[in-house]
């Protein structure tokens, strides 16, 4: 079977898989960003208790494997009376995992905003909420965008693991096609190329564009 015939026969399934992968990536990104901002801010809280919660979350999700977390969420959470659909368990696990890495990025970026900005905001008698929302956070966003570009690539790669709990994403389809045709180079190679295109030709350029737009908005470009 030539490669063109292979694509004609199985191309549709690769597209289906790629769509699920894209959905998983987008949903996991939403979870990751929400958790990262929440936990990153909690990590800077003056209260030891709030800081403790964030630290435990970050250390647990960064200290163990994504695969372990995924299986735990999918197989063990139901035992606690919290059954999750495999699709939901998939993007939740990936998002929570990357959110822990993201939380450290958020914390680092907020701490990297020059101290004078805090002092000026304080001198202008802005409330802590306004200070963070209008002065500190927008500047921190600019600093955290480049590391987030890398994290989103990691996140995209992470979504391949949801195939192991039978979410029919790109990885899953590649495995199925390989199982029925034994054309391993074609099956896995095509999937690898699609992931590469997603990562290097969608996520990376989009993040660079976003960096550029944000920098202009802040008057720094």
């Amino acid at each position, binding site marked *: 079977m030539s490669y063109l015939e292979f694509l004609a026969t199985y191309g549709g399934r690769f597209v289906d898989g790629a769509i699920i992968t894209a959905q998983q990536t987008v949903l996991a990104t939403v979870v990751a960003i929400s958790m990262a901002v929440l936990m990153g801010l909690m990590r800077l809280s003056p209260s030891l208790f709030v800081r403790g919660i964030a630290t435990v979350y970050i*250390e*647990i999700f960064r200290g163990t*494997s994504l695969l*372990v977390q995924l299986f735990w969420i999918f197989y063990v959470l139901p035992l606690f009376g919290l059954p999750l659909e495999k699709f939901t368990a998939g993007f939740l696990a990936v998002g929570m995992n990357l959110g822990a890495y993201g939380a450290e990025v958020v914390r680092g970026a907020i701490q990297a905003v020059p101290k004078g900005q805090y002092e000026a905001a304080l001198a202008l008698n802005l409330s802590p909420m306004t200070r963070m929302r209008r002065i500190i956070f927008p500047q921190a966003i600019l600093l955290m965008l480049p590391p987030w570009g890398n994290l989103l690539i990691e996140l995209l790669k992470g979504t391949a693991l949801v*195939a*192991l709990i039978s979410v029919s994403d790109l*990885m899953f389809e590649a*495995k199925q096609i390989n199982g029925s045709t034994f*054309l*391993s180079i074609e099956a896995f190679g095509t999937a690898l190329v699609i992931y590469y295109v997603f990562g290097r030709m969608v996520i990376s350029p989009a993040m660079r564009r976003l960096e550029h737009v944000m920098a202009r908005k802040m008057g720094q470009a």
Partner: protein
Amino acid sequence: MFDWRWDFTFEILPRLLWATMNTLLAAGIGYGIALVLGLVLALAQRTPYWPLTLIVREFVEFIRSTPLVLQIFFVFYVGPQFGIRLDPWTSGMIAIGLHYAAYLSEVYRAGLDSIPKGQWEACRALNLSARRTYFRIIIPQALPASLPGMGNYLVGIFKDTPMLSVIGVAELMHTANALGSETYRFLEPYTMVGVIFLAISLPTAAGLRFFEAWVRRTLGMSK
């Protein structure tokens, strides 16, 4: 509902700990491959032959932006198509070693780039060979800057070894899956796997920070 059974936990613990040895072995071998191969990939991007640089650069980018689990499958299944049969351990080590070699090559690259130009010029002026320049002058200075990244990926490769379970390497995750399907109990095996991972990766990460500080102090580079 929630019923944690300690007797069952202690029953499965020996098997899990035994599998932990395999996990550590896999991480160790994979990291060894990655350390050496990563240096090759980094140095290949510094030769005067630009086509080589271009190819290696694109290769590294490709490896870094595609999922490791897919690469593991690729290496494992592609061999037999050409009549080469690789056992799970060999193909697993090739895949994970290559994946982390790509990451480490970026760490090395950043380290090498951090060396001031004057050091290279001095080596030239002293007529040192390329090999002596790298091994006696450049790499010893680039190492401290590379250590934090190298340490992070040591912990990273350890945490990625569960992916080897997909092709049947009998490491921690594989054993937990087997225990789960033998006994229909998933709570204890998976939770214990998580605990074992935490128990190893947190002290390792802390130990690496100490090691970096020690190296910097020893080389008289601490601020």
